[in-house]
């Protein structure tokens, strides 16, 4: 068990490409941290730097009270679960789990005891003599987990461990991994590109974009107060709606590009008049209202059972503005709603549910 | 070229490469450079003096009628071996690709000649065509009235080594043709059949063109084989004779170097052979690179 401290870590490849632009992150003992972001954002690179599989070109990585920058992966006291599991195909399940312990010179009886214990936890008891190719995807995943936990390391590192599983199994394994981590209380860093996986598993998550940590926080913090357009759009499904607009001259209203006028949160400080902004509003925060400021024409309806999703064009209820149609908007209503295509609704949003971002930088205001 | 994940070690990679590099240096690169070096030297008749003669050895070589004749013989030999072996193997592969019953048995019965040494292959056919007791020579005489004698008749001798060399190569060509045929998508053939093409027409318009990468590859391999791997076939049987009728380039370089002890001339011949191998290897690699794109 240990804390993990990442300070000002950078990665520049020999060809000059800068993959990580100085990241700071403190992981508490036993915490489950998820690195999430689109492919190419540097999340796997950061994880591999923690593992020691990539060199660190700037900053320091500390596991427990040791700076590990120059240590071999084997000496960092970490265990890693790979996307394709990386099980040794010619070894049995038992040998796969025991290999790391054998290399560290553990006595036979202790290896036996640890492997049996891990097999018990992971329900692999009957499978110890099998080869990886004789196992199902979920079982292989468990063996990969088992290989990590027999080591009883300071930290687990997960590199998209569920992306090779089918949807149903993915949900099931997600729960299992989380429960296991709770039970063992081992500090974990988990990489995924799937924001639902990230939201459901993380104690805190790090949203990464182009080598930069956009925001670090608990899932709810990120959902409620995204620090940028990128985070707002990345977290939450269906994605947040974004509309272009401008602060009205009174500083208490927003003028959308399509001419609609929305009230700003009352408790917020008055915004600088005439500032160009991007307004974000989640689909579930748009509600039908006869006299709402937005006019919404339904183009497509998706019935999900618990929810109904409406897709369509939003424009100003009063007309006018600069004539912009406004853009595509998603609305999420709970329950069933039999709405025909072409139905026109009025929409409104609570001022408190509006997210304001600077139009140029995309940062939250 | 290299794995993304590599190990770091100061001396281990060199230690791992040392055996292969040492053998390569001592037995390949050094002798080859010596051949280059000798090829511009000339030794006098008593082996006492060595003079630098630049390209004289090469000039002499290419004005020497026996060398030019050997060149012709080698080309004729190689082309005949490749043609004979490839066409025989292609027919068998096409048939084997058609049949379902017994396909494995046919394959087994056709691949074993690969394992026979070129020299032994030569001896086998030498016996079959032996003018006194060979069964083939007897058939030719008794049924066709042809008096086969490879010890006196140059054409017979050439035919003998062509047959022996081609026979051994059939297995190899057969296996590659069969693999090539089986790689052609069934749906293409079926589409052609639905379009009303007869089996023969299908072969010439669909199968053969699609097989052309394999064919080209095999042509190169067969020519390399006929050039360089048939020394045993010739040495164990005709020994270049009669009257130089089967004196191929490789046989000649051996003969002039070891029997004739002509240092400079033999080295110059070696260099010419090297140029040929390098050309063929480059052609082959070019082709393989191209194939990767497919």
């Amino acid at each position: 068990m240990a804390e993990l401290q990442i300070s000002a870590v950078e990665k520049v490849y020999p060809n000059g490409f800068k993959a990580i632009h100085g990241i700071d992150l403190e992981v508490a003992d036993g915490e489950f941290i998820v690195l999430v972001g689109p492919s190419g954002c540097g999340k796997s690179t950061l994880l591999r730097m923690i593992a020691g599989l990539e060199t660190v070109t700037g900053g320091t990585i500390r596991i427990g009270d040791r700076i590990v920058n120059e240590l071999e992966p084997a000496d960092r006291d970490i265990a890693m679960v790979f996307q394709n599991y990386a099980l040794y195909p010619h070894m049995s399940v038992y040998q796969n789990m025991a290999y790391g312990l054998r290399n560290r010179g553990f006595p036979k009886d202790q290896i036996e005891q640890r492997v049996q214990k891990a097999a018990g936890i992971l329900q692999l008891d009957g499978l110890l003599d099998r080869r990886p190719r004789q196992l199902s995807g979920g079982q292989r995943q468990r063996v990969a987990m088992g290989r990590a936990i027999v080591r009883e390391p300071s930290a687990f590192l997960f590199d998209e461990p569920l992306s090779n599983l089918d949807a149903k199994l993915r949900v099931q394994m997600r729960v299992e991994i989380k429960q296991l981590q709770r039970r063992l209380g081992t500090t974990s860093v988990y990489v995924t590109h799937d924001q639902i996986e990230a939201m459901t598993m993380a104690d805190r998550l790090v949203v990464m974009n182009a080598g930069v940590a956009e925001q670090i926080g608990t899932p709810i913090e990120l959902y409620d107060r995204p620090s940028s357009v990128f985070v707002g759009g990345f977290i939450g499904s269906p994605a947040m709606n974004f509309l272009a607009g401008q602060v009205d001259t009174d500083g208490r209203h927003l003028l959308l590009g399509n001419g609609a006028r929305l009230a700003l949160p009352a408790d917020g400080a008055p915004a600088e008049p005439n500032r160009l902004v991007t307004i974000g509003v989640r689909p579930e925060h748009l509600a039908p209202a006869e006299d709402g400021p937005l006019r919404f024409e339904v183009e497509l309806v998706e019935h999900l059972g618990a929810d109904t999703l409406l897709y369509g064009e939003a424009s100003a209820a009063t007309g006018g503005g600069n004539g912009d149609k406004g853009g595509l908007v998603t609305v999420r209503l709970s329950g069933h709603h039999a709405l025909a295509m072409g139905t026109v609704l009025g929409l409104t949003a609570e001022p408190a549910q509006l997210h304001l971002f600077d139009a140029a930088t995309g940062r939250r205001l | 070229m290299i794995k993304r994940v590599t190990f770091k070690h100061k001396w281990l990679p060199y230690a791992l490469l040392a055996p292969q590099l040492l053998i390569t240096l001592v037995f390949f690169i050094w002798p080859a450079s010596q051949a280059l070096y000798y090829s511009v030297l000339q030794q006098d008749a008593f082996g006492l003096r060595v003079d630098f003669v630049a390209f004289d050895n090469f000039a002499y070589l290419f004005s020497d009628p026996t060398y030019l004749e050997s060149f012709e013989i080698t080309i004729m030999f190689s082309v005949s071996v490749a043609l004979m072996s490839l066409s025989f193997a292609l027919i068998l592969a096409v048939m084997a690709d058609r049949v379902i019953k017994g396909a494995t048995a046919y394959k087994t019965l056709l691949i074993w000649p690969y394992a026979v040494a070129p020299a032994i292959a030569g001896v086998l056919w030498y016996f079959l065509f032996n003018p006194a007791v060979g069964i083939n020579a007897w058939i030719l005489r008794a049924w066709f009235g042809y008096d086969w004698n490879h010890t006196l008749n140059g054409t017979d001798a050439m035919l003998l080594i062509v047959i022996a060399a081609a026979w051994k190569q059939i297995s190899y060509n057969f296996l590659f043709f069969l693999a090539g045929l089986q790689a052609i998508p069934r749906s293409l053939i079926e589409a052609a059949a639905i379009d009303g093409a007869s089996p023969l027409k299908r072969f010439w318009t669909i199968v053969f063109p699609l097989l052309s990468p394999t064919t080209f590859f095999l042509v190169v391999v067969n020519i390399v084989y006929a050039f360089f791997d048939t020394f045993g076939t010739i040495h164990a049987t005709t020994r270049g004779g009669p009257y130089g009728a089967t004196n191929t380039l490789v046989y000649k370089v051996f003969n002039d170097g070891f029997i004739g002890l002509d240092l400079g001339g033999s080295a110059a011949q070696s260099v010419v052979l090297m140029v040929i191998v390098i050309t063929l290897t480059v052609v082959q690699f070019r082709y393989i690179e191209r194939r990767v794109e497919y």
Partner: protein
Amino acid sequence: MVENRPWLTVFSHFVLILGIGVVALPLWVTVVASTHAGEDLLTSPIPMWFGDNMVDNYRQMLGSGMQHVSGQPLTLMMFNSLVMALSIAIGKIAISLIAAFAICYFQFPLRMTCFWMIFITLMLPVEVRILPTYEVIANVFTPLTKLLNLLGMEGTEIVLPGITIDLDLSMLDSYAGLTLPLIASATATFLFRQFFLTVPDELTEAARIDGAGPLKFFRDILLPLSRTNIAALFVILFIYGWNQYLWPLLVTTDPAYVTIVMGIQSMVNVADIEPQWNLVMTAATLAMLPPVAIVIGMQRLFVKGLVETEK
């Protein structure tokens, strides 16, 4: 089959059987001839069915050989062939494996130079460098002494404090001379390199995290994964080694080192008299037996090896 044309199927079988007949004819005649007494094979047409002299022929050839030619029993020649084939196959596999491992799994100065030096051996078969290679075998220190001479140092020995190394070591008429020059092979190195490139990188990373260094990784992970490739290559290289002809011809003059493939030519090329065909064919049968048995017995590995070495 695309459509049902029974006559075409019959024709296919007919052509195949005919082809096998042509291909197998030399084998048949050889084996049949090896079962006859010498006088049966003096007049044409020779018998096409087995005779009853088989045991005598094989006993004589295996036990004492053909007296008037070399007088070496075939058991000895076959033993030499076996030593040569095994040494070449095992030696090539061993040094190619570690060389390919170094080239694929390490980043080090001169890596590409080493790669090209190995690559170039593809272009230098024995046949094109006969004489100079022979010189090296006659004294393996030839390259070293010539280089020393070039640097102005005379003599054929290195004197170090305490020891003197005599730079004169002939490999003529030795197993080392028979096999060493044939052991370096770009083909095998390329095959292993090709295979190593397909081994997932994650396995290496997992092994590193599991505390395995390069040699442990090689022994515990890479080697077991290469088993089929090694076996397939072994089949091809065994045949290659067993069938060597020119090289043994050059470096062996001592009958004790004659291999069977090379030994047969002296039985055929006898001066002025007709060869003893029954005994020659006995020898030919014995010379073919091991490699043919391997090709047929290990057909699957053989085909795999053949296809992959040509990639």
